[in-house]
C-alpha cells in the first residue's frame, strides 16, 4: 500500500516537472530571443489578403521566405530528388539592409559557425520547393480582428513604389536560429496604434460629415 502511494507521488512529481518544464521552456526560449536577439524587419506580401484572419491570428506571409529558394539552396539539397528534399531542415542566413529589413542571403544545411551571423531554422515544405518558416502567425484579439484584417489586407494591396519600404512589415527578434515576432507595423505604426489612429480619423470624418450635413439643412431651411 505504501509502495503504491510512493509511486503515485513519483507520478505527481513527474507531472509537475513535465508541465512546468514545458511551459517554462517555452517562455524562457521566447524571452531569451526577445531580450538578447537582434531585431530585424520583414516585409509582408499578400497571399490571401481577403482572408488573412484565420481563427485568432493574421496569416503573415514574409516576402523573403515566400520567394522561391532555388539558387539559394545548398548543393547537397539541390542534388536530392524532390521526394527526399521534403521536410529537410535548413538554416536561413539573414542579411540586413540599411533600413533594418532582413532578407535571406542563402540557405545552409548546417547552422553557421559565425557567432554573429543572423539565422533562422526553417525546413523545406512538403512540396520539396517552398520554405516552411515559423513566423507566420500573428495572434490578435477577436475584438479587433475584423478591423485588423481589413487594415492588413488593404495595406498588403498597396503596392510599394520603387525604393519605398514594403508595407506592412513585422519586427522579429532573431537569436541562435530561433525567431519570435515582436510587432506588426502598418504605415509605420504598430497594428494596435494604427487601428486607434484610424478609428480617430473615422470619428473625425463622421463629425465633419455630420457638421456639413447640418449646415446644408440649415441653409436649405433659411432659403
Amino acid at each position, binding site marked *: 500500500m505504501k509502495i503504491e502511494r510512493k509511486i*503515485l507521488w513519483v507520478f505527481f512529481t513527474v*507531472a509537475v516537472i513535465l508541465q512546468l518544464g*514545458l*511551459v517554462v521552456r*517555452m517562455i524562457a526560449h*521566447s524571452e531569451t530571443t526577445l531580450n538578447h536577439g537582434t531585431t530585424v524587419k520583414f516585409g509582408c506580401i499578400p497571399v490571401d489578403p481577403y482572408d488573412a484572419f484565420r481563427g485568432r491570428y493574421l496569416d503573415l506571409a514574409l516576402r523573403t521566405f515566400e520567394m522561391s529558394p532555388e539558387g539559394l539552396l545548398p548543393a547537397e539539397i539541390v542534388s536530392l530528388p524532390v521526394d527526399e528534399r521534403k521536410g529537410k531542415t535548413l538554416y536561413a542566413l539573414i542579411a540586413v539592409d540599411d533600413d533594418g529589413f532582413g532578407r535571406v542571403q542563402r540557405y545552409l544545411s548546417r547552422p553557421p559557425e559565425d557567432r554573429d551571423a543572423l539565422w533562422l531554422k526553417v525546413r523545406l515544405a512538403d512540396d520539396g520547393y517552398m520554405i516552411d518558416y515559423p513566423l507566420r*502567425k500573428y*495572434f490578435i484579439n477577436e475584438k479587433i480582428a475584423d478591423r485588423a484584417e481589413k487594415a492588413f489586407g488593404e495595406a498588403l494591396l498597396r503596392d510599394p513604389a520603387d525604393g519605398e519600404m514594403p508595407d506592412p512589415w513585422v519586427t522579429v527578434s532573431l537569436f541562435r536560429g530561433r525567431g*519570435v515576432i515582436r510587432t506588426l507595423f502598418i504605415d509605420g505604426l504598430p497594428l*494596435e496604434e494604427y487601428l486607434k489612429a484610424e478609428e480617430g480619423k473615422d470619428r473625425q470624418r463622421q463629425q465633419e460629415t455630420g457638421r456639413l450635413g447640418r449646415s446644408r439643412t440649415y441653409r436649405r431651411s433659411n432659403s
Partner: protein
Amino acid sequence: MNAHINWLFRELPELIQDGLLDVQQAERIKSRYLSRSDGRSQEAGGVLLAVFGTIGALLCSLGVILLLAFNWDRLGIAARVVIAILPMLAAQYLGFLLLRGKDRSPAWRNATAAFWMLSCAGALALVSQTYHLEGSMEGFLAALIVCILPLPFITRCFTSDLLYLGSITVWSILVRANGGQAFLFWLLFAPFLVRFILTLKADRFGGSAVYLSWFAAVSLAVNTGFSLERVLPGLWIPVYAALFCLLYLSGALVYREDIPAGRQPLYLFGSWGIIALGALFTYSWPWKEIGWQYERESLASGTSVGDFLLLGILSAAVLGAAIILIRQKKAGHLVFGAFLPLSGLCFYLSASRGAGAMFVVHGLFNLYLLAMGLSRIAMGFGSRDLIQINSGTSILSLLIAMRFIFVEDFFSNLIWRGFIFIALGASFFAVNVWLVRRLKKVEPRESGA
C-alpha cells in the same frame, strides 16, 4: 427503487398468506433487496456527482478563459504569462490535495482531472499565443499529451482516462492527415492500456470499464489504420483481422456469458468487426493488387518495420488468448479466432498468385461466414441462448443477402447461383427437420424429469 423489487415486495404478503414463505424469510428477502437497492442508488448518486463535478470544472475553466479573453489585449506579456500558468498551478495544488487525502470521491477525482487537463491545455495555448509561437495542432496536442501523461495514474478516474485516450486518438489522426508517421500512437497507448487493465480488474462490469472499453475499441479500430505506413499493399487485412480477433478473444476471456451483450464491449465490437470484415472479404476488391509485387517502397527501406511489428505483436497476443481459452475449455470461441489465420492465408494466396487465387479466397470466406453463423446457432441451441441463435441467423441472412443481391464474378452466373441456393435451402430444411425431432426427444425427457 427498482420496479422489479417493488413488485417483489408487493408479492411478499401474498406468498406468506399462501404459506410459501414465513414472516422471517420474507423479512430477510426484504432486507437483502433493500440493501442492494440502496447500494445501487448510492452508486447512481456517485456517478451523477462525478458527471456534474466534471461538467462544473469544465464550465468554470472555460468561463475563466472567456473573462480573460475580454481584457487580453490590455494585458502586458508578463501578466498574460502569469494568468496562463496560474490555473495550472491551482490544478497541481488540487492534485496534491487529492494525493494527500486518503479516499477522495469519484466526483472530486473527475472534476480535478478535467480541470487539470484543461488548465494544461490553456497554459500551452496562451503562452504560444502571447509569444506568437508558430505551431500546428498536432504539435500542440503532442505537447499536451506529454503534460497529461501521468494524470490518469494520479487521478485514477474515467475523465482522465477518456481525455488522455481522446488526445492521443486525435493527435494520431491529425499526424496521419498531414502526411506524418503516427506509429508513436502505440507507445502513447501503452500507459492507457495499463490504466484500462487496472479499471477492468477493479470492476469489469462497472460503468467506467464498460464505457472506456467502447471508446478504447473505437480508438483502436480507427488508429490501427492511421498508424499503418501502407508500404505493403493489403497488409491491413491481417492487421485488422488480428485486432478484431484480439478484441473478441480478450472479451471472451474477460466477460462471463450471463452478462448482457451491451456490457461486453470488447467481445461485441470484436465480433462486429470480424463479421463486417468477413463480409467484405467475400468480395474481390480487398484482394486486388496486394502483396509484395505491388510494394510502394522497398521493404528493405525499413519504413514498414512498424507495420510488421504491430502485426507480430497483435498475432502473438491472439495466439496467447487462444491458448488460455483452450485451457479454460472455451474453445467454441475459436471459430471467431480462426479469422486471423484464414485472413493471413488468403493474404498470402492473393499476394503470391494474384487473380488466380480469387476463387479459392471467395470460397473460403463464404464457407467461413457459413460456419460462423451455424456455429453460433449450434452454441445458442446448446446453451438455450436465443440471442446467440439470432446472431447466427443474422450472419447467415447477411451472407445470403450478399450472395443474392450484391453479386460479382462466379456468383453472377444465375444457373450456378440458383443451384447453390436450392442446395443451401434444402440443407436448411434438413437441419430444421433434425432439430424438430431432437427437440421433441428432449422435451419429454425434461418433462419426465
